[in-house]
């Protein structure tokens, strides 16, 4: 079957750019409200765990490395090693989601979630901060779940010989998606956990 690898890759890039603009719009919204309620954003941001955020950043960066290594190894003919790399990336994706679940769980336990009476009693800027926090990190977590599922399917395809050194486009495109998930988190991390306006 004929496959247009260049076209497939270019199409993937166009899709990734649309994803970038989707998150870009949310970051603009964050910028607007952060400059409108600087004190309240600062107070709310201090309640997030920098340790959790930093750990998740290291976890995602490492998973991105493993996906990049998987592409290099598949292209050099080391399919088994590529599968191991992808398995490692999957494990790290689950770790990321686990840490995120712990973080969200702690916030829920303290009554800080959209619509909660505890949150609604706080100043308006803090309500906006936490609503944006849940929307952006929630949307990002959905992307992590989709990316991890795609990587698992590609690992299976490599195992079955359907993605090979001669036909690596499926892995390359899946890898691009995973790296984009990483790039988005690279911006989410300092905006929510570190920058105290």
């Amino acid at each position, binding site marked *: 079957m004929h496959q247009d690898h260049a076209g497939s*890759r*270019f199409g993937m*890039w*166009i899709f990734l*750019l649309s994803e*970038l*603009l989707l998150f*870009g719009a949310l*970051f*603009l919204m964050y*910028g*607007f409200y952060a*400059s*409108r309620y600087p004190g309240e954003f600062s107070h709310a941001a201090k309640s997030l765990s*920098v340790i959790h955020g*930093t750990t998740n*950043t*290291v976890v995602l*960066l*490492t998973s*991105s*490395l493993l*996906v*990049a*290594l998987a592409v*290099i*190894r598949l*292209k*050099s*003919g*080391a399919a088994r090693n590529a599968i191991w790399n992808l398995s490692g990336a999957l494990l790290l994706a689950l770790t990321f989601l686990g840490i995120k679940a712990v973080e969200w769980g702690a916030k829920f336990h303290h009554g800080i979630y959209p619509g909660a009476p505890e949150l609604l009693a706080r100043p308006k800027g803090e309500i906006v901060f936490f609503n944006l926090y849940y929307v952006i990190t929630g949307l990002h977590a959905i992307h992590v779940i989709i990316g991890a599922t795609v990587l698992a399917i590609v690992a299976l395809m490599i195992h079955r010989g359907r993605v090979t050194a001669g036909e690596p486009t499926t892995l*390359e495109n899946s*890898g*691009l998606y995973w*790296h*984009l998930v*990483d*790039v988005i988190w*690279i*911006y989410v*991390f*300092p*905006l929510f956990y*570190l*920058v*105290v*306006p």
Partner: protein
Amino acid sequence: MSSDTPPIATPNAPAKPAAAKPAANAAQQLSTAIGIWLYLLALTGLTVLGSLVHFGHLAIVVCLGIASTKACLVGWHFMELKHEEPLVGRLFVGAFALIGILLIILLFDVWFR
């Protein structure tokens, strides 16, 4: 025959170097990827340490500057933008520039309205 005489090429002779080249290339790519990962971790550490310093209004610029450097490293090396058509790179930079310009316009509107 002089020892400087180049070896006579035979059909089988290039087989070994040709097979070794992709492996050597892959090894080099692997070490580059690991090097980039170490840079990314160092920049993450720098972001966390930088947040402890009171930069005032510049904090957002410092944080976004480091984040953009990290995003460029991931895009250029891990996403292999360096091997893509120039058009893809321009689109990628254009998308970032669009978000940046909109952010600047938005902040000016909020600050000076």
